[in-house]
């Protein structure tokens, strides 16, 4: 029997790659009976969904979270000009 700690690892793994049929059955049996692991699974699925929504939003809007600070820009220009000599 897998512990809940192992089960959360298996649940996480199942989002990364296909797990074996045996493991999958074990997972389903466990989450049917265990509220906390069921909760963990729905949390990480929701987390994945929210992150992907966020990414779609950012891509669509072409929004950038941090514009380059003007001081940085000036410094870069200086370095580049020096390199170009």
């Amino acid at each position, binding site marked *: 029997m897998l*512990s*809940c*700690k*192992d089960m*959360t*690892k298996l649940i*996480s*793994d199942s*989002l*990364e*790659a296909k797990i074996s049929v045996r493991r999958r059955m074990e997972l389903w049996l466990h989450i049917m009976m265990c509220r*906390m692991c069921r*909760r*963990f699974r729905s*949390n*990480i699925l*929701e*987390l*994945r969904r*929210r*992150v*992907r*929504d*966020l*990414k779609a*939003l950012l891509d669509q809007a072409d929004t*950038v*979270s*941090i*514009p*380059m600070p003007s001081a*940085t*820009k000036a*410094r*870069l220009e200086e*370095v*580049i000009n020096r*390199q*170009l000599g």
Partner: protein
Amino acid sequence: MGIRARRDPLRIRYVALKNPDAAEDAVQEALLGALKSLSRIPPHSETGPRLMGILKKKVVDRQRQSMRVDTATGDVDPILDQLFDKNGQWSEAARAADPLRLDSLEQSEFMGILKRCLKSLPPNQAAVFVGRELNEQNSEDLCKELGISSTNLWVLMHRARLRLGECIRARWAIGDA
């Protein structure tokens, strides 16, 4: 190279390394590297994507450096002891905590919380999470880039998910978005 090339590298660098000074260094290195090889670039090629390529390599180099430090300092993550007891069952504290309700968060609130929580992750966990979930990179490429095995990747993803869940719940509970 235009607007995108000017802004995007910094964003990547910030997310990947969480350090504005280091980000500036990397952008600088990448620009200088690109300038040096400018004479070899055919005039019709696009400089932007090329520059991003160089920058990504630099980010990866540094991630590898910090990753080495991380894995050397310990294979155990305290988050596991916080959430599970000695037998691997959910701890009392974990059971007593309020459930995480991601669906109740507005997108902008969620973005703010996620950013802060990603910053609080150990760098190797943040790197795999951002690579897999935000950049949707395939595992094989990501492992190669970070110089880790797929077993390691899964371990790090598991811990990142546990940590992010806890962090988001805690921040949401105190209304800190």
